[in-house]
């Protein structure tokens, strides 16, 4: 077990190293120059511009050879320093991310967990209810195939603009300051609702379909038939089938996590919800190396951690992996 996790950690660390390296490299290969963006419209004389350019290059640490920048990047990273944002100059990237993260967690965690729970329950239920299987399932297929953006815009338009029930931008009312008051919490929830629903619906469809197919497969598995042959009640057979069908769903969750996060990014952009996704868009549009880097770094870390948690959960719930990792049976 320890060896398994030891090896896993090595895998995760190398993935992290590689992903972060790519994350570091990609913005640098984008055409354009962040310092020039920063210096745009400075009313200096031409001869002083080079001076300012050098000055700010030094401040951003871009005046040294690329390999040194890369090393400095790692050194800074271990000190928890992701650099300074160009777009939000002179704010620190970590500060920006730390402000955004609660919104992401607030939006993503309930959306993922609730959709996972509800979708799987519903899928399992639909698998043995003919009319549901025939009516709601196609809807599920539609939902999963729906682009986040499209669903978000549709919801914003129908419930936000036409019906006017929900606000369509921001995380809380413009007349409020963050505080522990009911008014604020209500406003927070009101603004959270539409982005949440648009994420929830798309995820929900995916899990429901996956579960429906998995459970049909499990109900046809040998162990189900054996239980039935021994006259076990249906409830037990279904309980086992559900338990086993949820395992590939958990793997699915691990695999999908990146996609899930990407979906949240799009949704955040649509609803101007101030999470990481919102900042990524801003950062890319303004070629903010450091902010892009920081946001993706955060996503990488989150996805890796989530995967690791899922790995652990999987090991706990599925004995097969647990044995596989001690080098089990022939």
């Amino acid at each position, binding site marked *: 077990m320890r060896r398994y996790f030891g*090896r*896993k950690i*090595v*895998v995760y660390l190398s993935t992290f190293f590689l992903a972060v390296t790519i994350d570091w490299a990609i913005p640098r290969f984008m055409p354009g120059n962040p310092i020039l963006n920063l210096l745009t419209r400075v009313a200096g004389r031409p001869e002083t511009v080079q001076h300012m350019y050098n000055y700010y290059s030094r401040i951003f640490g871009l005046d040294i050879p690329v390999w040194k920048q890369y090393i400095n990047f790692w050194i800074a990273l271990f000190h928890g320093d992701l650099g300074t944002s160009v777009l939000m100059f002179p704010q620190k990237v970590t500060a920006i991310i730390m402000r955004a993260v609660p919104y992401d967690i607030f939006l993503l965690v309930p959306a993922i967990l609730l959709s996972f729970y509800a979708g799987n329950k519903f899928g399992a239920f639909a698998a043995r209810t003919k009319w549901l299987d025939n009516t709601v399932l196609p809807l599920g297929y539609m939902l999963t195939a729906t682009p986040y953006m499209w669903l978000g815009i549709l919801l914003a338009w129908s419930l936000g603009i036409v019906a006017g029930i929900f606000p369509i931008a921001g995380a809380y009312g413009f007349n409020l300051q963050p505080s522990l008051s009911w008014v604020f919490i209500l406003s927070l929830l009101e603004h959270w609702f539409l982005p949440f629903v648009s994420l929830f619906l798309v995820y929900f469809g995916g899990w429901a379909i996956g579960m429906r197919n998995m459970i049909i497969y499990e109900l046809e598995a040998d162990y189900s038939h054996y239980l039935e042959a021994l006259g076990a009640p249906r409830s037990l057979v279904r309980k086992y089938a559900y338990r086993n069908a949820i395992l590939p769903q958990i793997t699915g969750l691990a695999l999908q996590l990146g996609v899930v996060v990407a979906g949240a990014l799009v949704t955040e952009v649509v609803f101007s919800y101030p999470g990481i996704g919102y900042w990524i868009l801003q950062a890319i549009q303004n070629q903010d190396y450091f902010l892009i880097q920081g946001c993706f770094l955060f996503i990488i870390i989150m996805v890796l951690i989530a995967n690791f948690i899922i790995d652990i959960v999987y090991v706990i719930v599925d004995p097969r992996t647990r044995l596989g990792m001690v*080098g089990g*049976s*022939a």
Partner: protein
Amino acid sequence: MLKLDKISKVYSTGTFGGKLLPAVVDVSFDIGEGEVVSLIGESGSGKSTIGKMILRLITISSGKIIFNGIDISTFKKNTLKSYYKEVQGVFQDPFSSYNPIFKADKIFTIIRQEFFPKMKDKEWEEKVDSSLKAVGLNPDQVLNKFPHQLSGGQLQRFLIARALLLDIKFLVADEIISMLDASTRVDVLNLLAELKSRGLSILFITHDLSLGYYISEKAIILYRGSVVEMGNTEKVYSNSLHPYTKMLMASVPRLDKKWEEVEVELKAKQIENTIGCVYYDRCRVPDKDAGCAGSRPPLIKVEQDHFVACKHCMKE
């Protein structure tokens, strides 16, 4: 015709291949022209691995396989194709050899495209018919069907028929009849025997000792990747020396006599001894000793055409 020279296969397992799992250890034997050699062993003994190495489906970790004097690992594109024209394999699970969305005959079409692209339709059909008949199938009943419409036995014979389409010299028959019914088993066995009399060499991989006896001249008993006993079939069967072979012989259900009251040591799940005699953990020979545990006994010739890897079972 085919010579295995100290071949080994080591699988690496684990995420970074940190763990090495020897599947076949230093196995050497050869098969002459028109010879049938039975490779007998339990599941996990490495017998299928040897078959796959001969067919170059997996690489050899060490050692060499020589076919007609040439190391088969040197075969490239064209030479490999002509190798496959002469050496073919048929496997235990017939279902996995078929693609369920294509008709079963597809496996013939592939052979035709690969090896007989110029043959006329009529001639080809006759060839297919005769090889189907050779394996005891009625062409009208089995052609133009999807795999699910055929029984396991039919699919298995289909595969043999496919091998027969080629002018093969060597057949690796890996448990090909374990899924067949008793009544048709013997037909397939007879078919193999017939092919052998026409000069075909066969490596007959099986766990069923009676089948091995029926058609082969030479028997090789494999245990955990190592040969524990080998030689002339009659000698190995009638004068089994290795405790493992003896135990196997006693366990075979026979129609001519009932099981003896032999205590069967159930196969061990975890193998503790990895450097000594492969059979050490299960061995019930009273005088097994530290030497058995400490080093692997070599194959020793006990009589003409009979070798045993056990120092305690030499002929008295």
